[in-house]
């Protein structure tokens, strides 16, 4: 295939690819919105979970932070000595 042909193929692929990506993710937006609505109907006010990224970035509940710090240091020691 000549480079021009290849480029033509590439452009086609780009159009097709970006089209599919957008279509797919937009459909996903719709589907997820529906899903959340469904979840609200099915789950009669279950205790909402705070998005876990918060936990991942370290802002856990304050009251046991100190305890956890102590324990986690101890656990690390424990592991370091017992492996």
């Amino acid at each position: 295939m000549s480079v021009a042909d290849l480029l033509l193929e590439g452009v086609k692929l780009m159009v097709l690819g970006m089209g599919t990506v957008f279509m797919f993710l937009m459909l996903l937006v719709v589907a997820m919105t529906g899903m959340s609505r469904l979840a609200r109907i099915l789950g009669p006010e279950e205790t909402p979970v705070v998005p876990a990224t918060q936990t991942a970035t370290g802002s856990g509940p304050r009251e046991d932070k100190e305890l956890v710090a102590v324990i986690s240091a101890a656990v690390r020691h424990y592991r370091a000595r017992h492996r």
Partner: protein
Amino acid sequence: MEQLWQSTGVANLGWGQVFMMMIGGLLIYLAIARKFEPLLLVPIGFGAILSNIPIAGIAGDQGLLGYIYHVGIETGVFPLLIFMGVGALTDFGALIAMPSTLILGAAAQFGIFITLLGALALNLVPGFDFTLADASAIAIIGGADGPTAIFLASRLAPELLGAIAVAAYSYMALVPIIQPPIMRLLTNKKERRVVMQQLRPVSKLEKILFPFVVLLLCVLFLPSAAPLIGMLTFGNLLRECGVVERLSRAAQNEIINIVTIMLGLAVGSKLSADSFLTVETLGILALGAFAFCIGTAAGVIMGKIMYRLTSGRVNPLIGAAGVSAVPMAARVVNKVGLESDHHNFLLMHAMGPNVAGVIGSAVAAGILLAVVGGAAQ
């Protein structure tokens, strides 16, 4: 005596091998001293050193690394298991709370397809001869997602796998350097200062349903992405379903750690002098940087569009996180946001497009597989 000398490394070492070992050493240096994706680059770098040792044949058919490559990468098993681990480690809560950020994850995949064109255009330069499959495998670097890149490259262009993986992980580590200038260039101060409203809480049920919704769309519209999306959503289901704590822990720790070591070594074994020390590798490295820039720019521009459409309620910076490179890109967004306003924490909002980018590049990989690789996995 002659025979003895012939069995030493000095007598058999070619310059190419020395050079590749230095590349391996450089990757390890960057991993240790600069914290460049150390979990991958330490094993990859060491694998590069081991596989370029003369005589030993560690990357050969009978060698340890050759064997691992054959079992884990040729079959696609390792990247898929890592993807399962990624699913088990990822909280999609921020995305569920704000599904519209998926659009940002879609836009950032422009990086992939523009790079595809770039790779094909490079054929105009003498010395380059990329097929459509090669170009597709290179383009996926723009997805900023290691296992996806390795999976696709192992299927479409195994001989470029080493260079592609190195480029993908290196640029992912460089995200904090590559992205900010582009983000600043494309946005003005007012846009960067937008404070987004707090994300709504997400219920456990939503988190359990989410993997099924993603998988369902994949089944209906893009089955060629099913291996990647399937393992990602499986890992996520293990995490969220709450009844298989043991398995979730295994996916997040034992499996992903063991496989990461093996995958890294095996990828490193593809950094042999004759396949890496070519002009094509330079092209791949250049295209990789290009891909990240385009992806970032496309994400930010889509962010600006959403800023307009929502009358200024979306901070366009979060579009940059759409390239994936989880969670580095989201942190970069947070940092650039804080530069403009010391109280504007965008991390949570950037996590949405960030994880959307993972899905987006898996979708893009699925399309490339379907069109370029035939429908076969």
